[in-house]
């Protein structure tokens, strides 16, 4: 039997015809400097080929539903298994995706509640009997012949709507009769009800006179009625008016004793907020509603109303528009000026604009410069107010049953989320929230942290009848929870939205799902699963990878983490350098082989022959600092934190301890609202002091620098314009009448019009993946022939964009402004990228470093910016980290402040100041554990970071 995966002739990207054999059923780490070709081997070759082969074996029918992969550039790969890739991509911003839905635990819990749940009366909370429609029918038939039974479904007002709306809803469902506070009413008549009072509304579903052959009528009617009553029906004996003993017996064990309600059998789909059967009708299962925040309507309060102080789509100011007419008319009526800055308007005038004329009528006046609208002059109307109108629009969208789908983008941009007023964020209908298992409803169960949830589930005692189903469910859920806890995600809850998870957390959740699947003989390819993990949690991660291996799988991990590399059965180092300098197997084998191999840069760092040096001296505090008081966002426990400025500061702590909540949600957003956009809302805190010491806050994150291939490092950093100008100033260009824009592939003129400057033509095929072929006209050059005939120093514009960053530094040596900007990219280890490298294929770490290079390239004396970076060591080898630290320290040395959220101990040990949060994640975190130099942190017994840091500092 094959014991290796054999790869011959791998040439994907920069791989140099690599031949390698990877042992199967082992934990293999692929490492190397950034850009050396690790991902090209692991993902673009091994994973891509494995997936392609699997797909090729499927039927033509199945292939229609799965996009095929293009064949990687490799001669052959033997010994492959079905392959699964678990990368760091975040799961998108779908508000309906939660940890529970990602892990499928929610599906099991829904089954649990459907099977074991006890519904309760919405009025008196009494536990209700559960019956199928057939059982209800049989129970009705047990009554004496001639008994008249009325079946009613309780219905409730939808938040924000009146009783009339509810009556129409009942009517549209096909029911005309109702009981309101017990009295029969005809919904075809006008019914006046006080909206301020609660009324018990029951739709009369049907009435039956007990007799032969009514069974068929009853069952279908009950099924329809259960839909209207959200699973609840009330049974009331109308005749005889004086019930006998057999009539009274009807209610024994059937229906709540006061309200006669019975619950229908429950199904799992009724407990999902992604189905109308279970979703809260007010928020459609999103859990939040939206309301307009007046602050968001006026982005720049210094503007006057005539200058367009309001967001134009909310209230335009053009004299010919409705908004312009309203403004002019209101100003005339209330006596305020349209030329006064918004912030200087009197409060009562601002209130009129936001909340309306409150019943007061005013005369429509047409602005003097208006060309249209004269027919409205003199009419008397009322004004709702911009806020009122927008919220009205929002309610209309909601009523249409589409949640927020289709809502104006601008409407979303001027609204803020708050907990749904109906379900309080639970996302489920009222009746579903009344179903409990061991006194907890599904929402409450979803709010528990994993460890608490496991304890709760272990305490559930199913009845003998429930055992068969409940045991399976409980076992499956417990296994998944144990895996999630083992992988260090114990602080998460099932209700946590997926969009709020970090890349590392998402990856670990998917990893735990794979282990939970129990598959063997698989090939797993992972990308830096240690990202986001505190060293103390990394141990659990490594154990999890080993467990996956022990199930009988091959696990290939692209990693830089020293502990993970040490734990590997087999290590492959790709290099020796990045880009064209890499693409070869530098060293391979078990750890002891790597440590001894002098060619292995990784081995040199692991053996201690090379290390990331500690600074000779840490920068002393200069008295300037940012102080956050009363930080309470998410799990932060009302802490006060002082962040020294003009230093290199590291924020550390276990995953989920509150680092991002403190730095991103509070510090970054608060500063951004002060410097740029007052509409940005910071996380919950009392105050932030010290902003006057800063000029700006810059978040250097890992989001893409551009979303199309037309964006690249040259355009982002800004030296592309300078390059185009150089070309435009050549004699040949002047002779041909070319300008700088001729040398842009984004505008018509100099670009290849066959591909519109893309360099490739994409063709969509039905049964095959999109095929991208080199443009037959420009052959990928992106420019037309005329433009390519102009050269600068012997190279045309396409050839210049094909230069690597490293080559670019030398090429533009005579243009210091350009060379300086390019050289910063080189200093950050991005020398292998081409100047025209499409931003769509940059990794998160590469994108972050391009942004950092952009900032470094525009450093100005006299400015004091705060730079925030979140795990900038993602994707970086030890050697790359060294270069990164040089750049970060350069920022501090020029008078700026750098705050880095990090787990990497080599980075932490070089910091001037460390702020450690914890002690654990989630509700067990959020406290300030220690704050001081790395040495001070290392001696703090309560600090996990300190414990991990101590050996490193003593070793240094």
């Amino acid at each position, binding site marked *: 039997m094959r014991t290796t995966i054999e790869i011959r002739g791998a040439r994907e990207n920069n791989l140099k015809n690599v031949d390698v054999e990877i042992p199967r059923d082992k934990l293999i780490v692929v490492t190397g400097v950034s850009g050396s070709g690790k991902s090209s081997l692991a993902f673009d070759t091994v994973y891509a080929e494995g997936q392609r082969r699997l797909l090729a074996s499927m039927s033509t029918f199945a292939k229609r539903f799965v996009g095929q992969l293009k064949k990687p550039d490799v001669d052959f790969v033997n010994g492959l298994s079905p392959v699964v890739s678990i990368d760091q991509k975040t799961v998108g911003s779908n508000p309906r995706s939660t940890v529970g839905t990602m892990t499928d635990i929610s599906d099991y819990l829904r089954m649990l509640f459907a099977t074991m749940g006890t519904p309760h009366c919405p009025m008196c909370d009494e536990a209700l009997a559960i019956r199928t429609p057939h059982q209800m029918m049989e129970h009705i038939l047990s009554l004496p012949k001639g008994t008249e039974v009325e079946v009613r479904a309780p219905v409730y007002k939808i938040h924000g709507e009146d009783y009339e709306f509810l009556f129409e809803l009942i*009517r*549209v469902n096909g029911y005309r009769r109702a009981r309101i506070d017990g009295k029969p009413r*005809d919904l075809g008549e006008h019914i006046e009800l006080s909206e301020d009072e609660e009324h018990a509304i029951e739709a009369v579903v049907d009435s039956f006179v007990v007799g032969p052959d009514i069974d068929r*009528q009853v069952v279908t*009617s009950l099924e329809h009625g259960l839909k209207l009553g959200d699973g609840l029906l009330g049974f009331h004996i109308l005749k005889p008016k004086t019930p006998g003993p057999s009539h009274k017996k009807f209610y024994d064990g059937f229906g709540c004793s006061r309200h006669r309600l019975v619950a229908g059998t429950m199904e799992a789909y009724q407990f999902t907020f992604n189905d109308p059967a279970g979703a809260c009708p007010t928020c459609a299962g999103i859990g939040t509603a939206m309301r307009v925040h007046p602050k968001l309507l006026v982005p720049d309060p210094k503007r006057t109303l005539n200058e367009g102080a309001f967001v134009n789509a909310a209230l335009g100011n053009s004299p010919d528009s*409705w908004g312009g007419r309203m403004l002019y008319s209101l100003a005339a009526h209330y006596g305020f000026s349209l030329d006064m800055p918004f912030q200087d308007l009197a409060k009562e005038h601002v209130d009129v604009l936001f909340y309306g004329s409150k019943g007061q009528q005013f005369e429509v006046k047409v602005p003097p410069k208006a060309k249209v609208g004269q027919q*409205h002059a003199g*009419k008397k109307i*009322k004004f709702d107010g911009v806020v009122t109108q927008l919220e009205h629009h929002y309610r*209309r969208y909601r009523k249409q049953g589409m949640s927020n789908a289709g809502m104006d983008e601008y409407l979303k941009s001027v609204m803020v989320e708050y907990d749904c007023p109906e379900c309080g964020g639970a996302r489920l209908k009222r009746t579903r929230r009344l179903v409990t298992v061991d006194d907890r409803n599904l929402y409450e169960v979803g709010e528990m942290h994993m460890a608490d949830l496991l304890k709760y589930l272990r305490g559930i005692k199913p009845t003998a009848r429930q055992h068969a189903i409940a045991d399976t469910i409980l076992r499956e859920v417990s296994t998944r929870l144990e895996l999630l806890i083992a992988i260090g995600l114990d602080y998460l809850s099932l209700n946590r939205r997926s969009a709020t998870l970090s890349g590392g957390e998402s990856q670990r959740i998917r990893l735990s799902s794979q282990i939970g699947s129990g598959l063997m003989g698989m090939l797993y390819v992972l990308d830096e699963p240690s990202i986001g993990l505190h060293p103390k949690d990394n141990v659990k991660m490594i154990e999890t990878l080993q467990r996956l291996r022990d199930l009988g799988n091959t696990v290939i991990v692209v990693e830089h983490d020293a502990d993970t590399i040490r734990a590997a059965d087999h290590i492959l180092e790709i290099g020796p350098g990045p880009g064209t300098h890499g693409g070869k197997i530098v060293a391979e084998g078990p750890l002891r082989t790597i440590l001894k191999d002098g060619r292995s840069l990784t081995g040199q760092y692991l053996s201690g022959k090379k290390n990331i040096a500690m600074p000779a001296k840490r920068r002393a505090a200069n008295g300037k600092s940012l102080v956050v008081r009363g930080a309470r966002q998410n799990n932060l426990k009302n802490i006060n934190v002082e962040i020294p400025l003009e230093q290199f500061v590291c924020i550390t702590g276990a995953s989920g301890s509150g680092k991002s909540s403190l730095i991103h949600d509070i510090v970054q957003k608060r500063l951004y609202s002060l410097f740029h956009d007052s509409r940005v809302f910071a996380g919950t805190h009392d105050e932030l002091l010290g902003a006057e010491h800063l000029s700006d806050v810059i978040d250097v994150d890992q989001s893409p620098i551009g979303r199309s291939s037309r964006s690249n490092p040259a355009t982002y950093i800004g030296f592309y314009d300078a390059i185009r100008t150089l070309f435009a100033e050549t004699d040949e260009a002047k002779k041909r009448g070319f300008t700088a824009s001729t040398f842009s592939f984004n505008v018509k003129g100099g670009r290849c019009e066959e591909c519109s400057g893309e360099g490739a033509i994409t063709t969509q095929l039905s049964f095959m993946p999109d095929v991208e072929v080199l443009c037959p006209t420009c052959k990928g050059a992106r420019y037309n022939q005329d433009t390519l005939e102009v050269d600068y120093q012997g190279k045309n514009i396409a050839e210049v964009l094909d230069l690597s960053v490293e080559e670019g530094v030398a090429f533009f040596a005579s243009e210091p402004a350009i060379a300086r900007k390019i050289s910063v990219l080189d200093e950050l280890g991005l020398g292998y990228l081409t100047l025209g490298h499409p931003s769509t294929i940059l990794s998160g770490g590469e994108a972050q470093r391009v942004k950092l290079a952009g900032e470094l390239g525009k450093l100005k004396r006299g400015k004091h910016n705060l730079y925030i970076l979140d795990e900038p060591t993602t994707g970086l080898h030890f050697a790359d980290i060294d270069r990164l630290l040089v750049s970060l320290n350069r920022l501090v040395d020029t008078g700026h402040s750098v705050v880095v959220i990090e787990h990497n101990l080599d980075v932490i040990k070089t910091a001037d100041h460390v702020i450690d949060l914890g002690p654990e994640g989630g509700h067990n975190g959020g406290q300030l554990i220690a704050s001081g130099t790395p040495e001070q942190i290392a001696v703090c017994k309560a600090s996990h970071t300190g414990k991990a840091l101590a050996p490193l500092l003593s070793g240094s």
Partner: protein
Amino acid sequence: MPRETDAKKLERYEAALAQFVERVMVDRYVLAVVEEGSLLPETMWARHALSLWIIEADGVTRRIASDGTDERVFRILAENGVNIHAEVIPRSRFKKMVEGASRTAFSHNFFAKRRVVASKDKSIDGWFKKADRLATKDQERELLAFSTWTIHAAIHARKRLDVKGDLALASQDTLGAAHSVAHTEIIRRGEVWEDDVIYRAIEGAPALFKTIYLDVLAKPKNRKVLAAALDAVDGYLDEHYAAHLKPLLDYLKKEDRVVPLSEISDHFAFSQVYPGHLCAACDWLEKKGLLEKVSAPFKLTKRSLERVEEPAYFLDAGR
């Protein structure tokens, strides 16, 4: 061959109905048989078949290829030489027809004209009895629907007459408006608005319909006759608008703000009140000084950033 007399035909139809009912009610899946339109001597001349609703139990509907995608099931049966046109309706859908809001073609009047010939299900009898009783809101909705038609038709006829001077087409449009008034009258009286409504309306308001209908038909189609007819239609609208347009007026009064036409139309969606007719009605009310007409911004496509404008109306409740 001598034509069968209406009386003979009636006898034959009644016998066929009785036989059919006896046969079909043995079927345990048939719950009731409802006669659509009474068998009366005066209406026999038009009849070529019995028309029935057959109410079946839920879950037993038989569909055949000729039913296509239509939810409704129609069958042509025969009993003793008499054709029977039957719609077979499951109980739950029938219940919805009877009790649901009159946002479909059905109104209480529709059921008032039907007769339960045989029933095993007492609740069906009960629905009929209750459906007989006029639902105020349903009647108001129907009055609104027809009144907006009338306004629209009258405005159009007036333009033909006054602007185009086309007497022939103006007379046709005037007759259209008259039919609309006839429907409105019948609904207002709580009667069934089917089958030769105009004659029943004439009986109820002879003077009005002489002017707006009979004179237009019989007299020369000149400006004087047509103008008199349209003036009478306008007079009718003036007299009854407060009641006939009540849902619209109540809605605008409750909103107490400038309401765009699209919102008004949304409110009356499923009520067979067309946006175009609503606009005509609102403009008519504006001309009467009851509404102010302004405009409001309107987004033309899902992604539009620019706004066009649409009519919007404001009712001053204090006036």
